[in-house]
């Protein structure tokens, strides 16, 4: 509470400035170490703005502009509506005035948090599963304001303070860093003043009041900066691989001539922003960027690629192309005139989509320097690429629009599902046991490839069942199912190999091949399901209808094994995601069962005549 009140008071002591005609190209490229990875400032800004505001722009202000303003003009930034709080319960708990846009400024949010300190303390003692959605939103707001406070205070070392305390220096000091050497002297003067005139400010002359106020500001600046570590922009010229924030450099005394140079450049940047000096801003940001990029361990080409990745967002475009391809494929199947044109366009759309999809994954491999799948999000990207590529192969072999349908359905649905992860930096570092390129490249790629083929087989079964219900040509319908059978065989190859490789990895790192862990059992279930379908087809227990319904339900088995098991292990992913995902997953499974049941009944009745 004291911290927040002090913070609000302090922020009002900074000179206000607003700059909007700066060039942000170099500033956006300055490397920063965040969550264990060196990334461009632009990514840091995007991730935080999305987290607070739910979008990556505020009206005409880019994320980088927003970040620069928060860092160098905190007084203005704290009044800007920023924190999105959509939960009505949370608004009521914090006594926040309801707003139509649900946006609250830092000043409003911190005041509400400070006024409800007891509520915060009680919520922090609850474990995540015990929290209601509203309580979770309150805690999120609390965390977000703390995070934003780190950003607001990150450059207070260099910012021009609105205080006027005379000290015995050649040049008049303006920022904390100038005043710091004189603080002991100022403290002595203030102590003498208090001894002489007491604590009552009314008894002080104007210059004496300014001394008391100025020293208070300086002390608060120092106190508020002690754990300011978020903005890790100073490369470790002292060795090791941990970058430090300007304040951390100041507090830890990690100095070197190189560090001093970086610190001076950051100061120039702050001064240029506050003075609204576009030329000086450009010079300072370009110099900072070049200096940090020259540091070993920074890969400028990876930073450029990451900038382009976020600027062009090839994945979103790829998804749009798949959706367009899907519509065009439906046109091809409709039997309307000009089908040939639609078919060519559909192939073109899927081809372009695959290219962008591939570029996305290749960029991530280059930026992160590891195989493409290490997280759930990445598995969605990879599985969809496999499904789309195999769809194209099917189309090339069978030329009956089946492959196009498979590619566009799998591509658009899986990429759509991946959008729910876009709130965080999706390029995250991996924990120790996953931090092995060999197993990521073998087991993980194998099993996710198996998921991809399995989903394709499932979609083909759907197509077969729909064609059967619509009384399409029996020969062509059967040809579709043969494709499904072949795909199921490939899926079995990859899932069983992937599962065994997973066991071998577990044997290598934990000492047991099989431990009946939910994720292992999930993979085993997919293999068993496929083995069951294929054998029962051979033994004659399943004819076309039964086999197709079973293959269609493979999608449910895959969804449960791939995503569903995460719901069993508490704390694996954020609870917000899990709650939502549980419902989506349940709805998906229900819809699949309904589809399988209805088509089975229709075909069964027809077979009985």
């Amino acid at each position, binding site marked *: 509470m004291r911290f927040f009140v002090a913070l609000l008071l302090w922020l009002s002591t900074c000179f206000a400035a607003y700059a909007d005609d700066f060039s942000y190209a170099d500033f956006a490229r300055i490397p920063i170490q965040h969550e*264990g990875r060196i990334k461009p400032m632009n990514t840091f800004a995007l991730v935080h703005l999305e987290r607070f505001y739910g979008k990556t722009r505020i009206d005409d202000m880019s994320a980088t502009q927003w970040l620069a303003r928060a860092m160098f003009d905190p007084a203005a930034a704290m009044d800007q509506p920023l924190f999105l709080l959509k939960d009505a319960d949370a608004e009521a708990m914090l006594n926040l005035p309801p707003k139509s846009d649900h946006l609250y400024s830092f000043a409003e949010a911190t005041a509400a948090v400070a006024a409800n300190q007891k509520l915060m303390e009680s919520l922090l003692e609850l474990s995540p599963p015990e929290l209601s959605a509203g309580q979770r939103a309150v805690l999120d707001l609390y965390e977000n304001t703390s995070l934003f406070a780190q950003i607001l205070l990150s450059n207070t070392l260099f910012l021009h303070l609105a205080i006027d305390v005379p000290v015995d220096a050649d040049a008049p000091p303006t920022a904390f860093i100038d005043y710091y050497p004189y603080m002991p002297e100022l403290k002595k003067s203030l102590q003498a003043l208090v001894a002489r005139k007491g604590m009552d400010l009314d008894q002080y002359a104007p210059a004496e009041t300014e001394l008391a106020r100025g020293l208070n500001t300086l002390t608060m600046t120092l106190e508020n900066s002690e754990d300011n570590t978020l903005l890790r922009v100073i490369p470790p010229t002292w060795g090791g691989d941990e970058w430090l924030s300007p304040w951390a450099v100041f507090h830890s005394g990690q100095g070197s001539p190189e560090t001093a140079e970086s610190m001076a450049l950051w100061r120039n940047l702050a001064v240029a922003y506050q003075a609204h000096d576009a030329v000086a801003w450009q010079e300072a940001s370009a110099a900072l960027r070049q200096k940090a990029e020259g540091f070993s361990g920074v890969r400028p080409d990876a930073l450029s690629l990451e900038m382009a990745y976020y600027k062009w967002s090839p994945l979103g475009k790829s998804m749009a192309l798949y959706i367009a391809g899907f519509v065009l494929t439906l046109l091809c199947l409709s039997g309307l005139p000009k089908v040939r044109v639609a078919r060519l366009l559909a192939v073109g759309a899927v081809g372009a989509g695959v290219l962008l999809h591939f570029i996305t994954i290749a960029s991530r491999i280059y930026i992160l320097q590891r195989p493409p799948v290490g997280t759930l999000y990445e598995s969605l990207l990879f599985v969809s690429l496999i499904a789309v590529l195999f769809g194209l192969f099917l189309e090339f072999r069978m030329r009956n629009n089946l492959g196009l349908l498979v590619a566009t359905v799998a591509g658009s649905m899986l990429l759509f599902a991946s959008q729910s992860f876009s709130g965080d930096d999706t390029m995250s570092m991996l924990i120790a046991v996953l931090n092995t390129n060999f197993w990521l490249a073998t087991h993980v790629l194998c099993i996710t490839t198996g998921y991809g083929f399995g989903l394709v087989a499932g979609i083909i079964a759907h197509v077969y069942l729909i064609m059967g219900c619509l009384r399409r040509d029996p020969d062509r319908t059967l040809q579709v199912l043969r494709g499904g059978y072949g795909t199921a065989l490939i899926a079995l190859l990859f899932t069983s190999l992937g599962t065994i490789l997973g066991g071998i990895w577990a044997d290598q790192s934990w*000492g047991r*091949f099989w431990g009946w862990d939910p994720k292992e059992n999930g993979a085993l279930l997919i293999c068993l399901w496929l083995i069951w379908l294929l054998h029962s087809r051979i033994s004659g227990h399943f004819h076309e209808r039964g086999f197709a319904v079973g293959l269609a339900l493979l999608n449910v088995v895959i969804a449960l094994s791939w995503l569903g098991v995460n719901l069993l292990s508490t704390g694996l992913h954020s609870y917000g995601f899990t709650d939502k995902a549980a419902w989506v997953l349940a709805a998906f499974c229900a819809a699949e069962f309904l589809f399988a049941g209805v088509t089975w009944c229709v075909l069964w009745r027809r077979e009985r005549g």
Partner: protein
Amino acid sequence: MKNSKAIRWLSKPILLHWLLPYLMALVAVGTVAQKYIGLFDSQRLFFSSFIVWVGLLPLPGGRMVTALLLVSLLTKLIVASPWRKATAGIFVAHLGVMLLLVGGLITAASSAEGYVALGKNDTASRFYDYHQRELTISKNGAVVMQVPIADVTKGKMIAGDFPFTIKINDVCRNCTMANRSGDAGDFKGPAQKVMLAPLEGYLEDERNLSGAEMTISGVGTYIAFEPMEHQPEFKIGGDSYAVTLGRAAYALPFSLQLLDYAKEVHPGTDVPRSYRSTVLISDGDLHQRAVITMNHPLRYKGYTVYQASFNGGEDTESVSFAIVQNSGRVFPYVASITLCLGLLIHLSLKLPTLIRRARA
């Protein structure tokens, strides 16, 4: 024999058709059950059991289903696998599955796994079971009798080659200590001041701390509790006896000393990047240093030593190693290669006819 009806029936996929859905249901139930009863109990109940009791109804457990599958597979391979080019892939793939199952069987029957926690410079020549606890009675430092915890039940009398009997008054799978009020009576040792109070068990069985209260004839009533340093010790006729309750221990044919350890995090975060320990193996005259990291265990004399966890938060106080002896560990490697080879052969023969353009 080839014509025997039963053998022919066993070799067909019909058994598989009915067994697999049951096995899948068992796996699914056993997986979801982990959330409620923990991995250890779920594994014991569903996967490592021959019979699963649902009320009074006995259903086949994981081991029985696997055994039936193995028999079916074996008969298929022996009696119903004519060696033809068209089915060569299927034969090889089934051989791979069989190797996998046989490996599982050998592992289930012969492997020992456990852990040892070492502080810096500590040495160990034994390791401990994660789950199995034992009551050990020793005379002058030598073990006389070991009773698995499953046999240590309330009211049980334990007698053996020693001049007293032990009556178990109470036992708990997970206990804590509480103050004992009132007269100390016949209680001896720490039992004069404290008593055991049962706690709800953890789902992760390795976190449970077992304890028992027992009356030793002619001596007194004691408590034995896993984490307690001073467990019942007494003298009868010049011999000193000790009764201890603890994890079952296995001897290593060598000793292991922890020389150094290091944990690395991704810079600026708490996310661990790697764990590394340096140990000294001493085996007779042989002394050898080895480095153990995540994904890179130490293998020595049939034992494998893994980096399991660093204990004690930021200032690591000890390092836990998982130690496994498993004679079946080579099977998955051979099986996966065989299985893949088989499936690849089958796919290359079959796929061109399955995925192709419809004949006009």
